[in-house]
Structure formats: C-alpha cells, structure tokens
C-alpha cells in the first residue's frame, strides 16, 4: 500500500515536472521571440500585448480580444488540435512522421470529391449522412496515404523523416495538378491558390452564429470529440498500449510479445486518418471547396503542438489552443505594427528546439527550486 502510494506520488511529481518543462519551453520561446522583435525595432511587451489582447489605437483585436477574434482562434485551434493529435499518435510509436501536411491534403481532396460528385436532396438526415460520408472518405484517404511510408519503413527500413517529407511534396503537387486539369476551366485562380467549384449544399455545415458577427465552425466540437476518442484509444485499448510500448522501447516491446511492425503501421494509419479529418474540416465547414493551397502549414504546426502537449491527447488540445492564439495574434501584429505573421512560425520553431532539451530545462527548474529551499 505504501509502495503504491509512493509510486503514485512519484508519477504525480513526474507529470508536474513535464508540465513545468513545457511551460518553460514556451517561456524560453517567447523570450527568444522577444529578442527577435526587439532586434527588428519593436517593443516586445507591447507586441505581445497586441498579439493576445489587442491594440486600442488601431482597433486591432488580439487572439483573445473579443468574440470575433476568439472565434477565429477557436477555428484555428480545431485544425491544430487535429494535426497535433495526428503527429502525437505517430511520434508516440517512435515514428517521426513529418507527413501530416500531405495526408491532410489528400484527406481534404477526398472529402471534396465525395462532396462534389454526390448531390442529395436537402434535409437534416441527408445532410448528416453526406457529411459523415465525406468525413469517412477523408479518413480512408488520409489513412491510406500515411500507410505508404509506414509500410516502407517496416518492410524496407526506409527512413520515415525522408519519405514523409517527399510524400508531402507529391501530395500537394498531385492535388494541384488534378484541380488544374479537371476543374480550373470552371473556376479560377485566387492569390491563395487554385480553387475547385463548391461542393453540394448537402455536404456543407454552416457555422453556429455567436454574438457580434462571430461564429463557431463545427471543426472545434469535432476536434474535441476526436481528442477524447484518441485519448480512449491510447489509454484504454491494447492497441494504444502497444503503440506506447513500441515507442518507449521497441526491443522490450518485441520480447513482451508485441508485433512491432504492426504497431508502427497502426499508429501511422491512425495518424493519417486524423490528418484526413483535419483536411475535411476546411472543405466541409469553412471553404466549401478544395483550395490547392488551403493549409498555411498546419501539418508542421502540429509537430510543435504535439511536442508542447508532451504527446498526450489532452495536453495536445491545450497546446493547440495556445499555438492558435500565437497564430491569430501574429496575424493582428501585421496590420498593427507591420510585423510579418511568420513570426509565429519562428517562435514555434524555437519552442520545438527548447522542448528537445528536457534535461537542460530540468536543470533550470531544479535551480529555481534550489533558490526557494535556501530562502
């Protein structure tokens, strides 16, 4: 009894220090970002205030500065939660999957095909049916796309970092090519990318209206549901246990009777399925069409999100909210100060680098603790 209590206490402390590590990585990222802002001639504190709250002079809303800004932040958080989860389930198995971006494009394109080529008479039942069908299409397509590098890794030992990056380029170029060939005469090119014609009315879900012109897209509740399902899959099923065991120590897992190759493939299929849903969210809930450049790099942001969330589904969802706030904040910096929004990506990169240094962060944390004890 005492032993198990001690173990519980240890686990609690370990999880606390992991949260402390993530928070410290974020603080370090922001410090370094502040230095970049300062070096570019901006006041870092003022800039961060504009990012998160807003600027009263120019009337720009920060990420949490009002209903409209908040609803934009939540829409962004939905994408980042999904791509973060997709990265987390593959990283948990030890697969360094950089291919979420590509699987997302394939998933979005599949959702578009189901939404465009099927047209149902409009009523709530057919609407629900059609949307579920399109989601299913994106899940299957995304899962298939991520299955490819997984099999290459298991059967031929092909380095997944290289193959997934290469497949990203292939996915983005292939979808662009098909859109150009088959749909361009009917639509046109906008600065953001090449657009297809819109999907059927029965495959669209309108956002829920909120006060002051704000609206909540279905992506956010869907992302929460996927988070809970992923949490359940990882923590309460044999498959989830096997995935985590393989990630911790593949050799030990193999001696323990786990089929390592199978666990790797399942983790990637799961990752691809979630990436596919992320892509479908843009087509079914936001743009109602496929845009050949719809993602501003959500798949890569997912890496930062998953790592800040320490590969835990709930942590990932919280981290997604935070990174979404940085994104929307950086977007309000552009009109308010003229600081390009790519600042967000630079800060994210720094946060990823700092999360790669748990031991260094632990040393810092224990130093802070040491100061307290002496007092």
């Amino acid at each position: 009894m005492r032993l198990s209590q001690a173990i519980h206490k240890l686990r609690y402390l370990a999880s606390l220090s992991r949260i402390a590590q993530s928070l410290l990585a974020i603080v370090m990222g922001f410090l370094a970002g502040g230095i970049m802002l300062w070096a570019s001639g901006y006041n870092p504190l003022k800039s961060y205030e504009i990012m998160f709250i807003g600027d009263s002079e120019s009337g720009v809303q920060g990420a949490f500065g009002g209903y409209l800004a908040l609803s934009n932040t939540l829409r962004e958080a939905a994408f980042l939660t999904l791509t973060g989860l997709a990265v987390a389930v593959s990283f948990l198995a030890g697969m360094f999957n950089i291919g979420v971006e590509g699987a997302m494009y394939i998933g979005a394109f599949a959702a578009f095909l189901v939404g465009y080529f099927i047209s149902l008479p409009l009523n709530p039942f057919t609407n629900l049916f059609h949307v579920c069908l399109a989601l299913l299409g994106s899940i299957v397509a995304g899962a298939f796309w991520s299955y490819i590098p997984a099999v290459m890794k298991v059967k031929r030992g092909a380095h997944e970092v290289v193959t997934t990056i290469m497949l990203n380029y292939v996915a983005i170029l292939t979808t662009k090519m098909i859109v150009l060939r088959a749909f361009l005469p009917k639509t046109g090119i906008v600065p953001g990318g090449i657009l297809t014609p819109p999907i059927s009315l029965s495959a669209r879900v309108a956002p829920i209206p909120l006060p002051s012109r704000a609206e909540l897209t279905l992506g956010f509740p869907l992302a929460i549901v996927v988070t809970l399902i992923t949490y359940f899959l990882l923590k309460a099923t044999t498959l989830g246990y096997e995935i985590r065991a393989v990630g911790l120590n593949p050799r030990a897992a193999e001696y323990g009777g786990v089929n390592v190759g199978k666990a790797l493939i399942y983790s990637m299929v799961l990752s691809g399925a979630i990436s596919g849903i992320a892509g479908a969210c843009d087509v079914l809930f936001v743009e109602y069409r496929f845009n050949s450049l719809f993602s501003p790099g959500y798949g890569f942001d997912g890496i930062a999100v998953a790592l800040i969330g320490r590969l835990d589904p709930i942590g990932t969802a919280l981290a997604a909210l935070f990174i979404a706030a940085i994104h929307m904040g950086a977007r309000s910096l552009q009109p308010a100060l003229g600081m390009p929004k790519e600042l967000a990506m630079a800060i994210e990169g720094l946060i990823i680098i700092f999360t790669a240094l748990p031991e260094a962060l632990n040393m810092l944390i224990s130093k802070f603790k040491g100061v307290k004890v002496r007092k």
Partner: protein
Amino acid sequence: MNYLILASLLIGTLRTSIPLIIGAIGEIFNERAGITNIGIEGVMLFGAFIAVYGTWLAQNPFIGLLWALLSGIAWGLIFGAISTHLRGDQIVAGIGINVFAMGFTEMMIPLIWGTYGYSESVNRLPPLFQLYGERISYFLPLTVLLAVLSSIVLYRTKWGLRLRSCGENPLAADAAGISVYKVRYLTSVFSSILFSLAGAYMGIDWNDSFVKEMTGGRGFIALALVIFANWKPLLALAGGLLFGFFDALQFRIGAALGVGVPPQVPQMIPYIATILFLLAIGRVRGPSAAGKPFVKE
C-alpha cells in the same frame, strides 16, 4: 534529343547536385561522429538567406559568403551543444531548426526588402567559366575536392579514426583518451559550415536572390543521399550526381515531353526518385552511436 538539350541537362545535373553532395558529406561527418542533424534543410535555408542579405548590404558576394560561413559556425556550435552538454533529442531539435528557419527567413523578407516571398536581386559570385552560355561555378571543382579530401581524412588519418570511433563506440573512444564532446563540437561546426555554404551557393551562385523555401526539400534529399551512399563521401559524390540528374530533369523534361504533360509531373520526379532510391537500398546499418547522447560515467 538534340545535343544542346543533352549538354544543358548534363550541366544542369552538375549544378543541382552540388548542394546535395555538400549537404550529404556534412551529414556523413556528423553521423560518423555520433551526431544526427536533420536540420540540414533549415541551416541551408538560413545560409541562403544570410548570404543574400550580406551580399545585398555590402554589394559584394564574397561578404555574403563570409556571413554564411559565420552563420554555419553559429548553428554548428548550437547543435554541438544540443548533441553533447545539453543531451537533447537531436531529431526533435533538428525539426525545430527547420521550422524556425522557414518562419524566420520568410518573416525577414518583408522587413528587409519590403516584398513578400522573394528578395531583391543581388550580385552573384563570379563563375569559373561559361560553357554553352551556362555558368560553371567554382563550387563544382571544390565539391569534388571536398569529397576526395573527406574520404582521405575519414579513412586515412588518425583524426578520421578518432572521429569515427566517437560515432561507433564513444565509451571506448573516451577510454582511449579521446574527448568525445570536443570531437562532436568540431564536427558539428564543420558540417554546419558545409550546410550553410551549400545554401549560400543556392542564394548567390546558382540564383541571384532569396526566395522563400528556396531549398525545396534538398536538405532532406541530402539526408536520403547519406543512406544511399552508405556513409561514404566518394559514394555521396557519385550518388549526388544521380540525385542531381533527377532534380535537373524536372526543369528540362517539360520541353521534351511536350505540352500535354502538366508541369507538376516533372516537378514530382526528384521526390519520387528519392523514395524509390531509399526503397531500393533497403535496410542499412549506419554508425552505431549516431543520434545518441554520450554520458560520461
């Protein structure tokens, strides 16, 4: 196919293979010394940016080259610390470097030049000579020299032996009196200088400006080339020409295939070829201790 197209394809192959070979040789040194840096793409992109910026400020491409050299040293020291004293997760840190470089360079373009996505044109490095109206770069003979010298240093000198022992069995190397950390710091600085100069080549020699994400995954293709070359510099030289051929093909095959083929098909060639190469090679064993932090008892 007429001779002019063939000549242009060959010159194009030489031109595109340069950053791949330099990047791969840098990573071969890294992994032979026990470091895995997948941030090649990021350091390259940063090198291209800083070289163009330095050239633009000083109106002199050699100053730009010097800036890229300094940037390489800085990244090498940072990654050296991550892979030694800080005992970091090298794969995650490498991903972080790539994301940072992508965001930072794209952020700096409008702050410096006031345009989005591309910089102003700058002076290029002078070419070695012109052939059929195409530039032949100084980087070409230097890359061949680099491959030959690297092979000699790694396999025929005591420094090479020491370096390789740090990547195969750092504990034994330490017992033999080699400072594993010192070797890894020096190697990391040397390889990051190579990555950065490969980027500078793309910015101020092959091209004359900085374009966002202009490295286009070549840092990752170099990573594949390391595996393809079985961690040997001379094989990286040969393999780099092969990979470079497929990279060059994308710019020239469009005309040969005719109007009916969408431009995205040739654009995909280098990426698909890289995957096929990896599949053909199959499972290989690199240096045992690559990517693992070394903890001295």
